[in-house]
């Protein structure tokens, strides 16, 4: 299967380890990963902040770069949601008919990591080994835009050695929301405080999620308080093996 990796601009810059983990994981499962170098950004930040015309070039670039693959994997629920749900909105509003058609062809081939693994590749046990206590935050966009359900948890449950503990009030938002955390910093902090309280209550060594932006937000708070709780993208846990631990 020809799988293209859309790393997302944020992961590319801040969390290259996530992309490396996705690559290692998929290759271990016997697939070929391609990384189209022309890729940039899905345009989510611009779209969600109200800067729609600025989003158009990014939609155009995404569809051109990722056209023709069997599947495009995205290690970010919110970026996958942006491509699948909102690219067609931007194309319809500012683009031409050709762009709209291109979006209709490409968007359905885009999968968040857990969707790709479970639905497309048909695996839940990816042969991972991660002997740590982990709790999982099911980020809002994965949960409610993509409806990934308990796919990530099914993948984590199959990891050998893991001590997976339930996160109380898991489905409530962590308070990141992109520019929301800047525009409404006080409310964002209040939401973060509650999320951190729940994470700390689990006694987990690591908080995991399918989106590094949420993890940066929660992890930034956990770090400031010197809690010692780490954050780790789902891909890194799934890529971890006895021979190649993370």
């Amino acid at each position, binding site marked *: 299967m020809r799988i293209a990796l859309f790393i997302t601009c944020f992961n590319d810059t801040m969390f290259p380890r996530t992309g490396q983990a996705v690559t290692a994981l998929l290759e271990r499962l016997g697939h070929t990963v391609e990384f189209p170098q022309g890729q940039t950004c899905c345009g989510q930040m611009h779209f969600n902040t109200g800067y729609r015309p600025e989003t158009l070039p990014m939609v155009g670039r995404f569809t051109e*770069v990722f056209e023709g693959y069997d599947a495009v994997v995205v290690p970010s629920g919110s970026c996958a949601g942006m491509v699948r749900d909102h690219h067609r909105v931007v194309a319809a509003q500012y683009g031409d008919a050709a762009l709209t058609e291109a979006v209709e062809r490409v968007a359905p081939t885009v999968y968040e990591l857990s969707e790709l693994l479970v639905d497309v590749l048909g695996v839940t046990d990816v042969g991972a080994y991660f002997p740590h206590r982990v709790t999982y935050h099911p980020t809002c966009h994965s949960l409610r835009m993509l409806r990934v359900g308990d796919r990530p948890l099914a993948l984590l449950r199959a990891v050998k050695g893991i001590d997976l503990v339930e996160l109380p009030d898991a489905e409530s938002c962590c308070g990141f929301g992109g520019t929301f955390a800047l525009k409404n910093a006080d409310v964002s902090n209040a939401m973060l405080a509650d999320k951190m309280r729940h994470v700390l209550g689990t006694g987990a060594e690591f908080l995991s999620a399918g989106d590094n932006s949420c993890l940066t937000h929660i992890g930034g708070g956990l770090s400031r308080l010197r809690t010692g709780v780490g954050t780790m993208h789902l891909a890194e846990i799934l890529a971890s093996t006895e021979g190649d631990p993370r």
Partner: protein
Amino acid sequence: MSGADNVVWLGTPAFPQAARTALADTQLRANLRRATGTIRDKRLAVAAELEDWEELRETAAAVKRHTLRHLDHHLLRLEKSVTAAGGVVHWAADAAEANRIVTDLVRDTAESEVVKVKSMATQEIGLNEALAEAGIRAYETDLAELIVQLGRDRPSHILVPAIHRNRSEIREIFRREMGEWGRPAPEGLSDDPRDLAEAARLHLREKFLRAKVAVSGANFAAADTGTVVVVESEGNGRMCLTLPETLITVMGIEKVLPSFADLDVFLQLLPRSSTGERMNPYTSLWTGVTEGDGPQNFHLVLLDNGRTATLADEVGRQALACIRCSACLNVCPVYERTGGHAYGSVYPGPIGAVLTPQLVGIGSDIKSGAASLPFASTLCGACYDACPVKIDIPEVLVHLRAKAVEAGRRGRRLPTVEALAMKAAGAVMSSPRRLAAAQKLAGLGARLVARDGRIGALPGPFAGWSASRDTPVPPRETFRAWWRRTRRPAHADSSATVEGKGRG
């Protein structure tokens, strides 16, 4: 102006500032968390009882879509059937006109007081204040509205206006204020809910038995029969709707339903979504007037107040499907922390964030007033899942954000710092080469300000973020660079050709 000024409370600061005040109130946070948590759990349980819940939602959404598409037609049908049943229909374009109509109707009865059943529409137009100016006293009879009125307060929730008050606060309000408005609170009033309810009952009974005029809102009105519906929990509304001689109902034009049979769906969805009950305790339906039974004069005021303008927006109009159940408030993580006052509007929470700016019109300054409301959300989507009529609130939020940004661009000669930053980021993010250069710069900059691999407090727009979160320093090698270094032979590097592939 649309005349919808009263939707927004005058002098209310923008959401971020108002939220800061609310967040500092720990009692408010505790009250809200307890109350929304309880209703949220009850709602989930009773919704799960119905096997066809999703079908009901879809049906309700379809009925609302149809009604809004043919709103003029159904409103004219409603006018006809109400008139045929002995009622009088009035049309009000804005708040001022609606207030004038109601004030004149009360004056015609020569009465100087009215009892009211909780009504969002009259809150929206500031009817109590308008009546007061005309020398008419309006008494709120819904228990929570009574608490708000006695406390000289503002409602904080659509369904539970006094959600921000706990019982000891309520006791204090009753003891201090009830005497000013009528029968005082009994001596030695405790904060036991039963005692508080009894005090309110005695206080209100005096008014129910005396009042000749009542003002109500409406949850629904059936166009085919002219039947108006009020749904409530306490029976105080029923007293208002049946005892007085004159009943004046103020109803937003979007509340019309094509037929009486449509109530079947909505009366299942509303109580389950709002109070988490299978059925609300009191459902009052009346059709015009009936000789010798109930009010002998019935007036229906159909209120526009920005609704027609909202209807003109293809994406935003779905907010008019709202049945005011408040399920979205109870699941909203932002509302849960700030309460309703921070929204500066009669309509708080997620639905308020999309309804208020549409009713008053999106202004040109996204830093103030109603235009700040679409930004008061993380777009987590919990509101959409909870909405019984499937209003895609996140979709409307981002739609209105775009409108607010556009309005800002039009209203300004110079772009804002944010607009410049977004433009610059857009240019960077649509080109891999510019992105790579920016990544290099960002990495250098970050390493300059970092300590122990983490970035602490930052100035400017990042101050709020960095006050409580460390920011990680980007690693020296981006993924893109790692891929090139490890995956491609050095001579095959040709970013120019790849660059040319995109449109950006």
